[in-house]
């Protein structure tokens, strides 16, 4: 009977809710199948105690069976080395889901089945979703699903997640196993007559421990045989540990290999036998389409130019395409503000209400919504590059450079994510094993110019550098990257000395992404931006509007207001940088709360002042955007504007980023990061402005 596994406790209790975990290698189509199974009913959160994303969703199998689907991190094995692997392993063994859907890439069976052979030992009912059947067909592989099924003793369902094929059959198979209608016990890889005898002895020794730790006996024995660090620590009995080690040493002496290799060898041996039987190669293709593409875009000559082109296009398109959207939303909010102002005037509402409501709440919301367009485009691009498989090529092409900075290729992803927002960028350093590598990647992340800084560049560069906005913005991104490299190197050579970690990374074949998958990923990021940053921004703008209005009676946002006094006090500090203007100082001050607040602040300071100086606050001809641009252009020279932009690029990370750094590296490093970055920004802006002024004088 298949009912002995501990994962089946749900049957007897008559429970209607089941938990089903999705497990598979990275890039096997996990996300795609997860989306197909759960539709839009998803919840994104974190694994307890760590910041790795946890996605869950619901699937109604029939009207009285509901399954909660848990998406586990993509992993190659169940060792205890990486955090992702530990999360997956802990979930499977401690939470004991009712079933596992093991997604296996049919076009890459051998390597994917390695994980499967480990999952079999967990004694949890399991279904294999043999995904990417179309890709396997293209490789001229003919896979006999029945042979796989009969050898593994598991239901095996051919799936093309991309087209939704086989999804229903997967659900059906899951239903069969959770209801206990699959009457076969999981197959196990055996480790040779001699090995099995030794393993049986070890299992005998471990019986009590396995019960106490609630772990499957064979699994525990195999893992301890491999020398699994985590489980060794769980055995409190030193004598037991020594006896297991004796067994290990005996085997090592006989075979002449370490136990880890022997076990992996048996697993792959089992897989090779299975694949030989189940898979027919109908025609030999030596070079796949992916390889042909890589021969061009990852080649020695074109690799770097192509990568630079991709990144350049990404930002060029994100900026230029979002401009009409931003303008449209701007004008929409301008008319909304006019409309509400009119209503309020007709109602004879007091002035402070219109200031708080119109300038603060509605103006602030409008500001947040204008960011959504460029940020969505950036994330759209990133998701596309990730799904199609190019991000790993980026890591391949750029690794030497990363290595030269003393960082592993893995650092490339958190840094690239930093372009969207430094907060997920910093959180993504969780995939890095080495503490020093991680710390450096965290500390240089704020130099990667995040999406929130983009609207600031667009507003100021748009006002001052009419024709060259794209180029100016690109140069800022480039300088940010250069600073990250330099600072990373300096840290590696000074405060964070140490060797870097191994770099072993799969280059998955290129795959056509789905629009749905990309859009869902984009939306998740945009939504979390609105939720996390949006409320903060509106709150800050509201606060600014209020302190700009106080003390009662002053001209709002004038030099005499509380806000103006703060700005006036800070301003002289920025004389060497060329923007010793109180409005710029206020904007920098608020920018620490959230980089995008610079836009709101400047809009408030320049926009409202225009209305006041015209002496007629109700004049409808004032188009907020144009006058704003003109006024900004009047206050800045191209040189001082560039110096200001550089300062914004480099200075203190925003509050949310500080929080992320404090969470991942400790408060000490967050404070360090703030002070260090402000110093760097101060020096660089000063150098650029002073040298620029000198050159202008000489010409």
């Amino acid at each position, binding site marked *: 009977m298949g009912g002995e596994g501990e994962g089946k406790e749900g049957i007897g209790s008559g429970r209607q809710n089941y938990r089903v975990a999705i497990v598979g290698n990275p890039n096997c189509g996990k996300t795609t199948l997860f989306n197909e199974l759960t539709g839009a009913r998803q919840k994104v959160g974190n694994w307890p105690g760590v910041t790795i994303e946890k996605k869950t969703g619901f699937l109604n199998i029939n009207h009285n069976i509901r399954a909660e689907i848990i998406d586990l991190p993509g992993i190659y*094995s169940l060792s205890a080395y990486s955090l992702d692997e530990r999360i997956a392993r802990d979930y499977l063994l401690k939470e004991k889901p009712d079933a596992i859907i093991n997604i296996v890439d049919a076009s890459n069976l051998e390597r994917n089945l390695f994980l499967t052979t480990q999952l079999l030992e967990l004694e949890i009912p399991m279904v294999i979703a043999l995904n990417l059947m179309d890709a396997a067909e293209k490789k001229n592989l003919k896979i006999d699903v029945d042979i796989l099924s009969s050898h593994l003793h598991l239901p095996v369902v051919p799936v093309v997640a991309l087209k939704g094929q086989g999804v229903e059959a997967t659900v059906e198979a899951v239903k069969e196993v959770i209801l206990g209608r699959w009457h076969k016990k999981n197959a196990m890889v055996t480790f040779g007559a001699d090995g099995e005898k030794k393993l049986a002895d070890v299992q005998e020794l471990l019986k009590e421990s396995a019960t106490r730790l609630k772990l499957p006996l064979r699994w525990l024995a195999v893992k301890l045989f491999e020398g699994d660090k985590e489980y060794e620590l769980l055995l409190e009995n030193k004598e037991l540990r020594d006896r297991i080690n004796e067994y290990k040493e005996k085997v090592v002496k006989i075979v002449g290999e370490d136990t880890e290799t022997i076990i*992996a060898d048996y697993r792959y041996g089992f897989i090779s036998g299975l694949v030989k039987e189940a898979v027919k190669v109908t025609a030999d293709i030596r070079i796949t389409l992916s390889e042909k593409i890589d021969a061009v875009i990852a080649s020695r000559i074109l690799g770097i130019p192509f990568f630079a082109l991709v990144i350049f296009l990404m930002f060029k398109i994100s900026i230029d395409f979002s401009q009409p959207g931003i303008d449209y939303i701007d004008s929409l909010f301008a008319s909304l503000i006019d409309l509400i102002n009119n209503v309020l005037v007709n109602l004879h509402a007091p002035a402070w209400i219109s200031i708080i409501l119109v300038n603060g709440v509605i103006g602030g919301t409008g500001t947040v919504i204008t960011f959504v367009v460029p940020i969505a485009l950036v994330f759209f691009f990133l998701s596309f590059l990730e799904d199609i498989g190019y991000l790993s090529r980026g890591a391949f*092409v750029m690794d030497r*450079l990363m290595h030269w900075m003393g960082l592993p290729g893995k650092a490339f992803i958190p840094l690239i994510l930093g372009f969207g927002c430094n907060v997920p960028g910093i959180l993504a350093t969780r995939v890095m094993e080495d503490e020093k590598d991680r710390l450096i990647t965290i500390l240089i992340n704020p130099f990667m110019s995040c999406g929130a800084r983009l609207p600031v560049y667009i507003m100021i560069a748009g006002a001052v550098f009419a024709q060259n906005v794209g180029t100016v913005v690109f140069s800022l991104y480039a300088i940010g990257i250069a600073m990250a490299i330099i600072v990373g190197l300096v840290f590696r050579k000074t405060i964070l000395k140490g060797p870097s970690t191994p770099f072993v990374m799969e280059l998955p074949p290129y795959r056509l992404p789905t629009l749905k998958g990309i859009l869902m990923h984009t939306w998740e990021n945009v939504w979390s931006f609105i939720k996390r940053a949006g409320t903060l921004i509106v709150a800050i703008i509201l606060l600014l509007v209020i302190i700009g209005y106080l003390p009662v009676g002053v001209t709002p946002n004038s030099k005499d207001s509380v806000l103006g006094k703060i700005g006036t006090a800070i301003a002289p500090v920025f004389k060497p940088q060329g923007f010793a203007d109180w409005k710029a100082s206020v904007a920098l001050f608020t920018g620490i709360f959230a980089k995008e607040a610079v836009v709101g602040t400047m809009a408030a300071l320049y926009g409202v002042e225009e209305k006041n100086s015209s002496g007629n606050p109700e004049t409808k001809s004032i188009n907020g955007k144009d006058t704003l641009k003109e006024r900004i252009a009047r206050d800045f020279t191209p040189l001082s504007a560039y110096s200001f932009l550089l300062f914004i690029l480099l200075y203190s990370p925003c509050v949310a980023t500080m929080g992320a750094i404090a969470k991942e590296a400790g408060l000490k490093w967050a404070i360090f990061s703030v002070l260090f970055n402000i110093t760097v920004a101060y020096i660089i802006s000063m150098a650029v402005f002073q040298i620029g002024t000198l050159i202008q004088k000489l010409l």
Partner: protein
Amino acid sequence: MKISMDQLLPGEKATVLQIYAAGDLRQKLLAMGLLPGVEIELIRVAPLGDPLDFKLRDFHLSMRRSEARNIIVERNNHHGWRGRRKRRHWKWQTKL
């Protein structure tokens, strides 16, 4: 002749003999199926000379020279350049 894996030229195939790596790296290589006896091919070198793109068990794995140095292999064909030309030839054939 035994050489370390980083000494292969693009297009050369070899059989893995020994892995002198420990801990994290060793475990990762084993999970990827890089075991004694498996055949690997060096496909290309990254633009800046490192890392390397290897093919084994029908998938691509990239690693740095410093990691590849820990893996001892034996060449399957002794003519790296000829091997490479053969690959080129194949490319055209599959295209036609």
